[in-house]
């Protein structure tokens, strides 16, 4: 990581998750051959904090850009870092097809259930009854559809080698997240194909909760809709 102070809100999961990803990269000794693809969303300027090569992608096209990089430089380690809007709404086609082709890339999927950068609108992963800027009375499945379990969708694809869902709501789970991310990168290093870790994180600002209460919400509510564990191995 660089020494830059992050722009993230207090209690946001991105800062810790950036660190977890960077620690894994350092432990595997792959910093000099890592190329990341940043999403459109709160993490768009992740490259200010990462000390390796990074490209920015158009919203949702992140796995397509990663595909172009990895196919031309197969010896490099390529990963995308994507939020729920980027990956599960506007980029649904790109993630499904990158997984289905079995692209040998790693995807870090950050699920906090809202669009943070644009001011807290409903994401495809927003829980039912959750209030957002576009679901003021709570998400109603008749009007707004249902929470999208995209990791489960990806897990059934033949091209997906490894899919796991983890959480960041306490130190124990942060360590489990790190273990899963390390495994995902190791799979890429062994040329075994598409690996993805969905990480449940907090957005205290647009959940209108304190950082502590936001962690509690993951533990009590979010994991019920998005059960933790290995979905494909």
């Amino acid at each position, binding site marked *: 990581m660089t020494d830059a102070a992050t722009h993230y809100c207090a209690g946001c999961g991105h800062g810790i998750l950036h660190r977890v990803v960077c620690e894994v990269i350092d432990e595997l000794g792959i*910093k*000099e*051959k*890592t*190329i990341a*693809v940043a999403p459109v969303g709160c993490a*768009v*300027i992740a*490259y200010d904090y*990462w*000390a*390796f*090569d*990074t*490209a*920015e*992608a*158009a919203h949702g*096209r992140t796995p*397509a*850009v*990663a*595909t*172009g*990089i*990895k*196919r*031309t*430089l197969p010896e*490099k380690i390529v990963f995308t870092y994507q939020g729920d809007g980027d990956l599960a709404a506007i980029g649904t*086609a*790109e993630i*499904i*097809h990158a997984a289905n082709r079995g692209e040998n890339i790693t995807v870090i999927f950050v699920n906090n259930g809202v669009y943070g950068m644009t001011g807290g609108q409903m994401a495809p992963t927003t829980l039912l009854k959750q209030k957002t800027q576009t679901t003021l009375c709570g998400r109603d499945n008749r009007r707004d559809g249902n929470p999208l379990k995209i990791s489960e969708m990806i897990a059934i694809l033949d091209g997906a080698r490894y899919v796991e869902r983890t959480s960041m709501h306490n130190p124990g789970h942060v360590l489990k997240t790190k273990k899963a991310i390390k495994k995902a990168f190791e799979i890429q290093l062994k040329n075994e194909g598409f690996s993805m870790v969905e990480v449940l994180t907090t957005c205290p600002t647009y959940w209108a909760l304190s950082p502590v209460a936001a962690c509690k919400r993951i533990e009590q509510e979010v994991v019920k809709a998005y059960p933790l564990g290995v979905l494909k191995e």
Partner: protein
Amino acid sequence: MKKKNRILITGNEACGEGAIQAGCRFYAGYPITPQNELTSYMSKRMDEVGGVFIQAESELAAVSMVFGASCTGRRAITTSSSPGISLKQEGISYLAGCELPAVIVNIMRGGPGLGNIAPSQADYFQATKGGGHGDYRIIVLAPSSCQEMFDFTYRAFDLADKYRTPVMILGDGMLGQMMEPVAIKHGRRTPDDGRRAKPWALTGARDRKRNIVRSFFIGEGALEEHNRKLQKKFREIQKAETGSENYKTKNSDIIIIAYGSMARLAKSCVDRLKNKLNIGLMRPITLWPFPYKAIKSLDTGKTRFLTVEMSAGQMVEDVRLAVGDDKRVHFFGRTGGGIPDEEEIIKKVLALNRKL
């Protein structure tokens, strides 16, 4: 070039071979008529030369894959036809904003909407005036034969690398699908060529600081500064790369202005009329930058210009800008996949001549 070195191929295939010989080793595309021969040709050729071929899930993904390949410093191409090119505009804007080289081929068909699969030139505005969001231009080359489909595609990669910009080949269904003998210039490039000269490329931050490919500039004034840099580059391109061809324009009272396949048609009209009239043809080769000065230099102050296009009148707006006297700029066009025939053009020219 000796005749025996020529091969008979379609414009679409000539375009693909031009890319291969230019050292391009990355293709991503999506099926759409009338450019399908190009995609299938690249599928075969990329396997033969050890390059990458991907049939993408969408036009959006295809152009983004090219974006990714270009990030690494590789020469990369995507091709499509009008409705597909509309979808690619997102990626073209990002390529321009991130200053990434890439070649995009549009084998135009009739529109708007799904339109039809017949030849058209109705994407001139989209190609030359920006297409996607933001203040940017891309170089647009207009071939008018299968040979030029090869030559211009080959050259497009050099221009793209030189200026770090997307370059578009603007052809049409007629050029894409017709067959002509084409002389193949055998490649002087290897797939790695150019990569060493691209210090901005993402290849892993080994023995150097990290590289970032970005078009997002949120700091105060940063995006304006970036735009100033882009505009300076666009001015340099206008100065150095504007191209056109004059055909029998000396002492002409009437000059036809046409590009691409319409220039071919206009040329034979000029030949048929030459013993009756002082008529010539001016053919823009680069549509952006547009050869305003070249048109101006042909204008005696009395010259009449007839712009012929397969559109409702798009390039004619640039001809009017060049001439600066709308009364002397005339237009003949067909739309929706209709192809003008020589008789129609000649009739229009003779009507103009009577008014002289």
